[in-house]
């Protein structure tokens, strides 16, 4: 049956090539889009987790906290020791966020002062990605500050200028003077206009001795995001070790909006693919139906010599499957080569800033998962079967005598 189906499909070479070609294009289109969706998801997750970690350890009261005090994790040194005992060698950032007023000689702005202490690899990456001029405040320094570029511009400040920070209502000195040592440039201009960075110790001395707002825990190393299961396993461990009063959140829980957007990408892509497969399916219906109409006499003879309606219907389905799978095979091969080539990294020269604005890295690494390939193949097989449904139904109802008298 399959050999007969194969030969029948190629009786009208041009028509079948066009149809199989359309299926191939749809498969290529789908898989390449899937690969870019995957690259976008991975890229956005990487950007987010590079900045904020895979897990965040916060005060249990932080979520609903309206005041500075409630957001603090006190006894940061003990908590850090407990964390490192549970996760030896893990990379970590300690963050203390302080709402404050920052002033230059002539202007002031309300900003978020961030005390930051990062492990060396995280600090290097932060420096590489965001430092536009000067340097970061030295670890442990009490009088150095770095400002977002937009903020520095607003305050008319440059490297070496004095900066005054007021953090009223906090537990530290509440006010201090610093020297501007670095200018930071972030993709989001609005963020850049609202942040100033100190060393963690500097921020603690200013606002909350011995406290942090959160620990950012970075799992794994290199490119890629650890599996969700692994992140959840670590969360469970930390939750049981750190006890009440401390909340451990995964990056999804810490950024629910972004997580929701990422979760919507695959379903949206599946819906999109569904519609382009419907278009391909219409072409397949046309080809298979024309093939039936042109061969009604033949089908009549087959029925006359003993083929029952199910056999005839199976032949139609077989022809549709052969046609669609031939196109799919070409599509898979071409998209496989394309994606393998693109997986080394695709950059978009000139669009770096626009990509960053959307939380995307400058280089995307397209790839497809087995599940995405399986979805694509399921669509192709469903297209073949659904496209053959009507012609098969028509063929199955042919009466042999009438069919043999049919004139195409």
């Amino acid at each position, binding site marked *: 049956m399959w050999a*007969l189906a194969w*030969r*029948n499909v190629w*009786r009208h070479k041009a028509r079948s090539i066009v149809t199989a070609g359309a299926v191939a294009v749809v498969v290529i289109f789908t898989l390449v889009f899937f690969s870019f969706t995957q690259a976008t998801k991975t890229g956005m997750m990487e950007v987010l987790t590079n900045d904020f970690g895979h897990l965040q350890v916060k005060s249990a009261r932080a979520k609903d906290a309206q005041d500075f005090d409630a957001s603090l994790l006190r006894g940061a040194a003990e908590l850090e020791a407990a964390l490192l005992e549970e996760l030896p060698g893990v990379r970590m950032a300690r963050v203390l966020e302080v709402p404050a007023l920052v002033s230059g000689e002539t202007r002031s702005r309300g900003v978020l002062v961030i005390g930051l202490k990062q492990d060396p690899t995280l600090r290097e990456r932060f420096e590489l990605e965001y430092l536009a001029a000067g340097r970061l405040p030295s670890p442990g320094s009490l009088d150095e500050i770095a400002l977002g570029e937009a903020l520095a511009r607003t305050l008319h400040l440059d490297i070496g200028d004095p900066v005054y920070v007021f953090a009223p209502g906090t537990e530290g000195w509440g006010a201090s003077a610093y020297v501007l040592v670095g200018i930071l440039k972030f993709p989001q201009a609005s963020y850049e206009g609202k942040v100033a960075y100190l060393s963690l110790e500097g921020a603690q001395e200013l606002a909350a001795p011995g406290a942090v707002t959160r620990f950012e825990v970075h799992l794994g190393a290199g490119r890629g995001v650890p599996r969700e299961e692994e992140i959840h396993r670590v969360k469970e461990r930390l939750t049981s070790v750190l006890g009440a009063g401390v909340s451990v959140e995964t990056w999804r829980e810490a950024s629910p909006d972004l997580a929701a957007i990422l979760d919507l990408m695959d379903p949206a892509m599946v819906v999109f693919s569904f519609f382009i497969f419907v278009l391909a399916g219409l072409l397949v219906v046309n080809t298979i139906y024309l093939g039936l109409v042109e061969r009604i*006499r*033949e089908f*009549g*003879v*087959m*029925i*006359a*010599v*003993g*083929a*029952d*309606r*199910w*056999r005839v219907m199976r032949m139609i389905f077989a022809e549709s499957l052969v046609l669609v799978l031939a196109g799919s095979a070409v599509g898979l091969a071409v998209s496989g080569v394309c994606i393998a080539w693109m997986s080394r990294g695709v950059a978009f020269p000139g669009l770096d800033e626009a990509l960053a604005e959307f939380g995307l890295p400058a280089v995307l690494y397209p790839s497809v998962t087995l599940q995405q390939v399986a979805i694509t193949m399921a669509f192709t097989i469903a297209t073949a079967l659904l496209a053959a449904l009507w012609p098969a139904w028509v063929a199955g109802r042919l*009466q*042999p*005598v009438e069919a*043999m008298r049919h004139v195409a």
Partner: protein
Amino acid sequence: MKPILRAVGLTKVYGSDGVSTPALRGVDLEVLPGEFTAIVGPSGSGKSTLLHILGCLDKPSSGETYLGERRTDQLDPVSSARLRLQEIGFVFQAYNLIPVLSALENAAFVLELRGVPKKVREEKAMQALEALGIADLAHRRPNQLSGGQQQRVAVARALAAEPQVILADEPTANLDSQSGLSLIELMKRLNVERGMTFLFSTHDPRLLEHVTRIVRLEDGRVVSDERVNAA
């Protein structure tokens, strides 16, 4: 001897746009095993309709048909198809071979439908082609064969399946005189050597010289039924 094919009070009325056209008006017929029977009559006399109904390709409006002891006029489409597949061979006026299959594959087609393994069916198909003298054309496609050769392949398709009876609708109508004569002699030889039962409609007077029985139809009725040229 019990008949292999039997029609009792067979009628067939075609209806279209409210106009009824009777094709058969009460045909009674019995065909015995091993007979080489021709159904003759002018165009529109009901020859093809009778063959189609006896071959379970069509349903009568009334009356009964039998293949051996089995009543066949009330079978559902699937049972009809199974019966045709297992018991009846067909040869059509227009050859009706499958263009994408070789002569050998066409001859083996009915056996393939029966689910016979490839090796066995190709052996049987090749034997049928040999019996018809066209074994050397086994791997040619129908468009590479003459009309006579194609009709031989069609006979081989019926023959390879070793049916109880072969029904042929004007088998020589599209053939030149030489090919037609050759096919007639061939069918007669199969009838004599293998005892195969042939029932066919024809206008061809040469064919009548070889038959053992002539059934004449006019206006959907049997007007004569005579046994001739007894073997």
